[in-house]
């Protein structure tokens, strides 16, 4: 039974990826891409990587899909130059086939039963302050990577400002729509609860700041798209505090041991769990803010042009 499911996934994933590239309509490509993302989340779950599956579903598929759909509403309906793409395709296909063959050759030569660093992680997990191995790696053993990744997120938010059009909070139809209003009212408390739960559960199971931040951002995206909220802007002091409290706290926790003769990010064993929880809470807000800053509001209605998709 499991073999059948895995076989289906292994067949469907490349097929969907091919269809995403092949389809001539952008909106179809987006829908297919979302389907591809959901199936690959399933694939990660089958590979016993629930943390990656969660992130893939929430960020890779949910938010990215929403962002792509939203982008479609901003673009004009000029059909892509399909013929030009078709001419380039054989070369791209050949290059990809060659890369796949090379990778396959290398992967088949890999040791089949290597546990990676899993044994080392398990051996030291007791000292990390948390019980879930993924959280122990992300926030403690390799917390320095995560510190730099938070900087990557901030930079991405700064870069998004350059391309995001300045949209006013146009009073769109969606804002007055009673259905979305009711949906939003029902959804918000549930989202907050799920996000809080995900941070808390990261201590001993799949979850953590990234997943929780993505869930929070999901609620925010609905608020932005229905004009209940504007896109967070760096010009607002409140937005800057919400964005930067997490990184500041993380840097503070990281350098504190230096002042007492310790090393960077060397958490005292007794408080490690608490410190990680506080940092993750603050980072959840940061991550949600960063993801929200990618979303411009609804497009102001234009006159004399074809309506948005």
């Amino acid at each position, binding site marked *: 039974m499991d073999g059948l499911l895995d076989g289906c996934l292994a067949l469907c994933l490349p097929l969907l990826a091919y269809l995403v590239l092949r389809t001539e309509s952008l909106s179809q490509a987006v829908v297919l891409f979302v389907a591809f993302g959901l199936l690959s989340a399933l694939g990660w779950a089958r590979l016993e990587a629930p943390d990656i599956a969660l992130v893939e579903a929430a960020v890779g598929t949910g938010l990215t899909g929403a962002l792509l759909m939203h982008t479609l509403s901003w673009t004009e309906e000029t059909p892509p130059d399909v013929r030009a793409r078709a001419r380039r395709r054989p070369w791209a296909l050949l290059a990809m086939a060659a890369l796949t063959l*090379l990778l396959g050759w290398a992967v088949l030569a*890999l040791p089949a039963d290597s546990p990676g660093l899993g044994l080392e992680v398990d051996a030291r997990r007791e000292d990390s302050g948390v019980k879930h191995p993924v959280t122990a790696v992300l926030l*403690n053993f390799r917390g320095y990577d995560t510190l*730099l990744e938070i900087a*990557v997120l901030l930079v991405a938010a*700064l*870069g998004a400002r350059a391309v995001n059009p300045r949209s006013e909070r146009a009073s769109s139809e969606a804002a007055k729509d009673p259905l979305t209003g009711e949906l939003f009212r029902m959804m918000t408390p549930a989202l907050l609860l799920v996000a809080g739960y995900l941070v808390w559960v990261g201590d001993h199971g799949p979850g953590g700041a990234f997943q929780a931040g993505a869930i929070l951002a999901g609620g925010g995206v609905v608020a932005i798209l229905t004009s209940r909220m504007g896109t967070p802007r760096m010009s607002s002091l409140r937005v800057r505090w919400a964005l930067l409290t997490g990184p500041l706290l993380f840097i503070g926790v*990281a350098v504190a041991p*230096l002042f007492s003769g310790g090393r960077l990010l*060397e958490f005292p064993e007794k408080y490690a769990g608490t410190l990680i929880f506080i940092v993750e809470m603050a980072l959840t807000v940061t991550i949600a803010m960063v993801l929200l800053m990618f979303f411009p509001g609804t497009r102001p209605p234009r006159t004399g042009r074809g309506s948005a998709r």
Partner: protein
Amino acid sequence: MTSVAALMAWPVILPLLGAVLALLVGRPGVRLVAGVASVATLMASSRLAWEVAHQGVLRQSIGGWGAPLGIEWRADGLAALMLLTIALVGPLISVHALDHLGDREDREFLPLWLFVWCALNALVLSDDAFNLYVTLELTTLAAVALIAVRRDLPGLDAGLRYLLFALPGSLCYLLGIALLYGAHATLDVGTLAQRVQPGPVTWVAAGLVTVGLCLKTPLFPLHVWLPPTYTGAPTPVTALLSALISKGSFYVLLRLWLEVFAPVLDARVGQLLGVLGAVAVLWGSFLALSQTQLKRVVAYSSVAQIGYLFLVFPMATSGARAGAIYLVVSHAAAKASMFVAVGNIHQAVGITALGGVQGLAYRMPFTFLAMALGGISLIGIPPSGGFIAKWLLLNESIGTRQWWWALVLLAGSLLAAAYVFRILRGSFLPLPAEVKVRSIPLRNELAPLALALIALVLGLVPWFPLELLAIGASR
């Protein structure tokens, strides 16, 4: 606070903290915060370099976990020299950016530059293959945001172009590292060096890592994104890209290649990289000579100068390594000086064509002095850092009986002389009457001169950098 842990942490943490605080204070205090952070980082980097020069190689395991579980830092002479280069060249470029960019761009440039500084310092110190990927990613994304900082169409186009080439480069690198981790269950560069064996995994991983990093640096024929990106980006950002950011990916390639891959690969692969580098030198110089836009001349010159760096791979001796690194450092100073000078010229006369320099040497003496000194280093005339670098490479090419690289070095120098003199010659012609020259702040005239003087001093006192480089040259 003089523990090794603190010594190695501050060059990474101070610019990061500075960037976050600069974002937080916003409009009024961003220059003050960035200035304080820059001075503090410069001091922290110099302090670390000083300790490396006196104590030898420093190591530190972050969080105290130790490899393979945690991430290790390693500061040898090469890392110390890179820290110093970044700390001297970067702030001089950002000083120039203050007046070159507008007020809003200025507020956004400074935090982004501090992020780049943090990323490059972290990259230089890292001894962990995945952590290197994170630092490369931070550098790339900050560079994209910097290129698009003006939010105009050329900038956005250049930024997107850079992103579309640099991101596959990162992914290739990551794929290669994933293969190595799968085979050897470690990300520590030193441990990987001991464990790699010739075989499909190592070959494919080395290929992916090399292609990915060559795409980012970039090496011919993957350089197609460079001229339009360098031309479309604001000039101070182009200076950062050419002087420092492109050197980050080369640094990673140099370390991984010399320490991990070279012993288990066929020598012919090194020859191939050398051939591509040689083609880059000749083709890039030739194209630089045939450009009509001033900025494109300097941009194509970067393609050629990056080509020289790859001559280290076929020779693979400690002398060639020293030569390549010496070129990294002197090219950082010289090319930054030339781009900043180009920015001054654009600001003064608003003409981007090569003919626009006509007669400007009389009105902007410092800018053209900087241009000439920078050019001397690019050509490799003594006394300059470029001369020392090319001399070392020349020596090694004779010493390893690979005389053909010497021909490439000489031909590249002749071509460089031609395109540099083409700029300088125009500047001494009489100033056309109809050209209005706007005066630019003295600070902006002195910034390129200071950068060019660094390249000059590198040629006058080569023993300090060379002695520093020898520290920890082999594990």
